[in-house]
């Protein structure tokens, strides 16, 4: 076993122990400690944004910058795909 493999196995064990402890320390599902933000959105989203769909009011209003980033990712994907395949077309 080379030195490189030993280091890799040690690193793998370290990461595995870290993940096992993280899994043991996880909250039980459905029991949250801090719920003030969730309660605010559930209670006030309809009056704040006027939309009945709470998910859309979060995505397009409360977290608008996140959607802007998603739109930018889509734009970049389309631009790069067209850039790659245009070259093959014009040869």
């Amino acid at each position, binding site marked *: 076993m080379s030195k490189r493999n030993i280091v890799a196995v040690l690193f793998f064990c370290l990461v595995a122990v870290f993940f096992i402890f993280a899994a043991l320390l996880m909250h039980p599902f459905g029991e949250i400690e801090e719920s003030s933000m969730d309660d605010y959105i559930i209670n006030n989203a309809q009056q704040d*944004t006027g939309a009945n*769909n709470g998910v859309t009011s979060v995505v397009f209003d409360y977290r*608008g910058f996140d959607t*802007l980033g998603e*739109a930018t990712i889509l734009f970049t994907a389309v631009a790069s795909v067209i850039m790659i395949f245009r070259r*093959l*077309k014009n040869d």
Partner: protein
Amino acid sequence: MTEMSKIVKTITAITFPFVTIYGLYIIMHGHLTPGGGFQGGAVVASACAMILVAYGSKWVLDRVKEKNLSVFESLGAIGFIGIAFFGLIFGAVFFKNFLVGSNFLFGIIPASGSGLADINTGGVLPLMNLAVGLKVIAGLFAIVLVMAYATTSYKEGKK
């Protein structure tokens, strides 16, 4: 991509309007029912991909140019950012929902709790859904169209 048989073409021509209308419905009702711009745009783009598979990329490219699709995609992005900047102008904050409660377009605030939905609500959310929907339709269709055409020209040899 070459065209498929007459049966596939006919069935595609029959189902294409229904799929498109369903996708546009998802986009337009994004602030009332589950879904929104991204999801409805993906539905409409998959309908366009269905047409592309059935009729072949040459037939589609005679009618739709991918440059025009790029223009529509950029229009959607500009609309989205433009509505956000209008929030900066009218409401002093970027992404401010300036139309809600104004009794103008989409300005009505619904009654609290569950009840009948009104499409004339939501402020700028329907407009943003429309912009993102246009962007996703044009973007995904342009991706599929360009890739399909590139594979056919590769198979036929260099021209």
